[in-house]
């Protein structure tokens, strides 16, 4: 092979690796030990007010909501550990935090997300204890807040319910991925181009996994909520989700 051909081969190998391998990556948990200590503490601190709001909300919630919330938490954990079969031949996973935010509101979803993240770190080795703060911010604060906000906005604009749920879950997932890339870039800025250059790199490397994942997340969330309405209407009414639907 000539030098040009060797380079061409190396490049195509790298491109194939980057494009196809990551499809079996999980949702974007920053792994244990990946962030420097300052960032671990700072992201944890940023999450504190949101968590406090969530705990206050939980204390006020009725006992019966507690069990429903626990079931939703167990559900998020279970779907994040199961692979979705036969979708583009890859092995992707649902995150489910957008679903929790749409059903229970962002404050409860934050606490739920934190508990699930601890479980995922200890039982699934996704994420970790030192990166808990950063992961909580991207997956349990930013994502659910965006999903809930987008859902409410779409309903206000009189968009269809399926469209609103799809947009909320998919865009919430995308925001999670952007925030994670930004967190990685802030911790490890590039030598040339600084934080922004590094952010573009991380976004690019993870994009092939996360873009299809966001769409799958949106479709599945719509299917799950539609399914719930037919088989668990009393519970949905109890958590105040279905009432709102009746009004329109």
């Amino acid at each position: 092979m000539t030098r040009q051909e060797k380079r061409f081969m190396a490049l195509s190998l790298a491109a194939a690796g980057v494009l196809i391998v990551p499809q079996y990556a999980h949702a974007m948990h920053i792994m244990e030990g990946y962030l420097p200590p300052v960032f671990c503490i700072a992201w944890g601190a940023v999450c504190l007010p949101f968590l406090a709001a969530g705990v206050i909300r939980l204390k006020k919630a009725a006992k019966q909501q507690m069990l429903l919330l626990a079931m939703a938490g167990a559900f998020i954990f279970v779907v994040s550990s199961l692979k979705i079969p036969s979708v583009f031949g890859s092995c992707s996973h649902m995150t489910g935090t957008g679903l929790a935010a749409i059903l229970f509101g962002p404050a409860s979803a934050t606490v739920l997300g934190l508990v699930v993240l601890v479980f995922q770190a200890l039982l699934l080795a996704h994420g970790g204890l030192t990166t808990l703060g950063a992961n909580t911010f991207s997956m349990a604060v930013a994502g659910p807040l965006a999903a809930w906000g987008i859902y409410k906005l779409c309903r206000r604009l009189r968009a269809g319910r399926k469209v609103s749920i799809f947009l909320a879950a998919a865009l919430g997932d995308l925001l999670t991925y952007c925030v994670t890339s930004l967190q990685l870039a802030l911790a490890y800025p590039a030598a040339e181009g600084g934080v922004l250059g590094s952010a573009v790199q991380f976004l690019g490397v993870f994009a092939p996994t996360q873009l299809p994942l966001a769409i799958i997340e949106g479709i599945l969330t719509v299917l799950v909520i539609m399914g719930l309405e037919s088989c668990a209407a009393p519970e949905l009414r109890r958590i105040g989700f279905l009432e709102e639907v009746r009004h329109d």
Partner: protein
Amino acid sequence: MRRIPKPEPMSLLAGALAALVGASLLAGSLPRPWTAGLSLALGLALALGGHSHGAAACIDRLAHTSRWAGLNAGLKTTGCCVLLMLTLCCRTPWPPLGLFVYTALLCMAGGVGVRRYLGLLALPAAFLLLSAAALLWHWAPAPGGLASVPFLGGWLVLDAAGQATARLVVARALGALGCLYWLSLSTPLPEVLEVLRRVHVPGPVLDLAVLIYRYIFVMLDTAARMRVSAASRLGYEGAGCGLRTTGLVYANLLGRSFGRARVCQQAMESRGWEGDIRFLVRKKPVRAAHLIPFAAPAAVMLLALCLGG
């Protein structure tokens, strides 16, 4: 007879990526044949090992049956957290790598098989490899450094600075991962939750955690049965159908769990539940000898840190 698993195409590609990243990490510091050999070995290990599903039940079982399960949970949690923090403060790759080997050996002494441990390590491999690739290679208008590949009108360059950062980050991640695995493979989760209760984590959060832990395994079992019955009705033929079936299975799973929550709540209320859930905890006293596995590596790490490690 044990069946040798056939490597999936995804695992093969992960292996190729692992070999590429391994070669970029080692390039220039070892003789060429060593670099090639080591990165090929890494790639092969990942391609043949693959990553396992059903990790939750596996880790839980290993934690309950571990030989370290008799140690005080508070001691294990505190010890692992201290080691984690020391790992993050390291400025050279060697102390974290040493800690990684030490914790891996401890896990194996606790009763975790080598193959099982490597399978668990493959779980975060995709993240580690991809982000290491992003740290190692960067785009530049002109070729330079240790290696460069033409890309989008410029060059993807591998240089010594990127290599140093990536080596340190990968080593720290491995060291920290070792600590996390030691904790999760030696301490059952309910004991960790009890430790958290003692350091005054708010009650509602812990009640939620206890309930979630209780229902995870019930739900995993239900999900597995639903998937088998859906598959036996050809529910996963083709991408569209598979996605639809997955949605239906998930909706049924959550709907049925909501129903189960109602039944469970009625049962608990009829037994005088007032909102908090407590379990009897078996006391596990701390002995001086128990401190050694934590204090010794912590002392070595501190020494390494003081010597500029």
